[in-house]
């Protein structure tokens, strides 16, 4: 009967109840949505690189090195000479290396010069290796392998020809038009900056810059694509390289040795540590966002209480009738509590449905336009805790109108004030 009363009473006031439900649902969607995105962002962020023990580049801060080598953001301060790279990669503790040469772009997408070790050793997420959705790794100087997003956004297929531009802007005035590259492979989506990368061989990078000097074409001297192939295409320098060690135990030893390398000023960073530091900087924004969401939620809950408190006046008759037929004041207290509980549970369910539908609808757009791979299921054990906390807070807040009902029941008795 109590449940029936609560249900029907709410239904009787469905106009205000629906609005309350609506505002509460919005704040819950915000709370759960932001909490989910936060976790997904962290997940996607930390899964960008895995299995790499050290990243080595010219001496700079670890964030800068991490940003340009892994996230393709910003630029290197200096290069690492090929000779140094060769020397370090022969270190007995080092199992493999991946050279990285950055600085060119293709229609806004960064070009990464590397070698075949990249496709063998690069790992992301939970130690996943790179998969091809079409084609294979490059085996010619003028072959290129596209990241998933590059291929879908620009509509490239295997065999298409693309030209690279010098520099990293979206619009470049100096293109390497004379030496086009052929799409040899397309990678499967990874949800990392890799999807936005154009991969070519180190030799390819060298070839297009043969007739360049100081970042500009040398006047009066052109070397055709075929002529370039005949020349020595061993790179003179690379931007950075990734290192896999024989044993993780050696990480700090090798790091120190590289940092103290005599020939050249180098920095070796631990990607995990650098990622954590970067995330810590971002987490302040993230926490602020969560705080705002919590405030929105509290506003929603307080709004619900205000509506209930306001409705207490028009419900005096209802309360007096219930008292007259023998309802104890506690019964009225519980009635209000139950109404709040019903509203909150309904709002939680509505929020869950809204969130899943929204994520489901946005999943493709987020993946294709932003390279964000969001799990469609926003629920975890923590969501359950959140929901429990929301119920608890609403029950505590509901004591205000519920206690009003209780006190009025004691004071007013059978008097009906119209």
């Amino acid at each position, binding site marked *: *009967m109590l449940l*029936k*009363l609560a249900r*029907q*009473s709410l*239904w*009787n006031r469905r106009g205000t109840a629906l609005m309350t439900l609506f505002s509460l649902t919005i704040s819950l969607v915000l709370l759960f949505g932001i909490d989910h995105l936060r976790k997904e962002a962290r997940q996607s962020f930390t899964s960008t690189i895995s299995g790499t023990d050290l990243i080595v580049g010219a001496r700079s801060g670890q964030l800068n090195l991490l940003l340009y080598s892994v996230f393709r953001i910003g630029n290197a301060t200096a290069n690492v000479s090929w000779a140094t790279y060769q020397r370090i990669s022969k270190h007995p503790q080092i199992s493999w290396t991946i050279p990285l040469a950055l600085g060119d772009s293709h229609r806004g997408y960064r070009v990464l010069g590397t070698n075949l070790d990249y496709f063998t050793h690069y790992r992301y997420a939970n130690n996943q290796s790179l998969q091809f959705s079409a084609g294979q790794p490059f085996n010619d100087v003028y072959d290129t392998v596209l990241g998933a997003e590059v291929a879908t956004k620009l509509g490239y297929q295997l065999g298409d020809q693309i030209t690279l531009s010098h520099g990293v802007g979206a619009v470049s005035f100096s293109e390497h038009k004379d030496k086009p590259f052929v799409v040899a492979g397309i990678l499967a989506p990874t949800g990392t900056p890799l999807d936005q990368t154009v991969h070519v061989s180190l030799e390819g990078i060298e070839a297009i810059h043969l007739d360049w000097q100081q970042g500009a074409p040398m006047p009066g001297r052109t070397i055709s694509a075929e002529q370039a192939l005949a020349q020595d295409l061993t790179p003179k320098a690379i931007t950075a390289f990734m290192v896999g060690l024989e044993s993780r135990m050696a990480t700090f030893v090798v790091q120190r040795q590289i940092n103290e390398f005599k020939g050249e000023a180098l920095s070796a960073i631990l990607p995990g540590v650098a990622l954590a530091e970067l995330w810590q900087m971002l987490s302040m924004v993230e926490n602020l966002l969560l705080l705002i969401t919590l405030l929105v939620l509290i506003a929603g809950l307080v709004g619900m209480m205000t509506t209930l408190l306001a409705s207490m006046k028009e419900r005096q*008759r*209802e309360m*007096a*009738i*219930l*008292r*007259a*037929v*023998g*309802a*104890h*004041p*506690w*019964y009225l207290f519980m009635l209000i509590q139950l109404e709040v509980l019903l509203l909150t549970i309904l709002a939680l369910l509505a929020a869950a449905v809204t969130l899943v539908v929204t994520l489901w609808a946005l999943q493709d757009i987020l993946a294709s336009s932003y390279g964000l791979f969001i799990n469609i299921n926003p629920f975890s054990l923590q969501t359950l805790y959140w929901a429990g906390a929301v119920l608890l807070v609403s029950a505590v807040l509901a004591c205000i109108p519920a206690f009003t009902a209780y006190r009025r029941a004691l004071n007013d*008795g*059978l*008097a*009906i004030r*119209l």
Partner: protein
Amino acid sequence: MTGIQPVTDKPKIPAIELKNVVFYYQTAAWQLSLPELTLQQGQHLFIKGASGSGKTTLLNLLAGIITPKQGEIKLGGEQFSSLSPAKRDTLRARNIGVVFQQLNLITYLSVLDNVLLSGHFAGLAKTAGEQRAKTLLQSLGLGPELISQPAAALSVGQQQRVAIARALLTRPALLIADEPTSALDADNRDSFMQVLLEQAEACQTSVIFVSHDASLRRYFSQQLDMQQLAQGVQPCC
């Protein structure tokens, strides 16, 4: 006032018994005192009083919402005034029916659910309650077609009858009616009084009927005037 003592042969338990009852509010220079009032089962009482005469206070006392500062109230032989609030609520649910001036029903519940409310708090079995509710409504002139209607869809006269059905569902010892006819026109009023007393008779329920309308006095054998009970300066409301 002492002339209310009824003359009866059978030693029945009185429906309600008040002795030396005094009630006052801390803030008002006014008090209600009732040295003695006994109503045998099935006997009715008319209380005449205008609004502001302490009527509501008396009704709250009789219904056990408030307790007297002095004296005692017995309901069906049970000490009413000294019980715990929760027990008084239960006792009220079982032994007292209340019919208000108007707007007696919870508008969002169906007619049947409104009637069943009193059974719910009295702990009446659901099926038995429904059965009795239907017969009661039928005898009050409310056919089965109205039973599942929302209470708000009924006319005022019909609503007041539903209120009678609700008040009598548990066969209470006492029915308190607070100006139940004030919203009714003359025809409706007379038929309302008839069915009320008829059904109360059938349940052996004593009716305490409060009204300022002296013309209704003729339905009752006993009368009490609020002015005799209230003493001191009257508060504004």
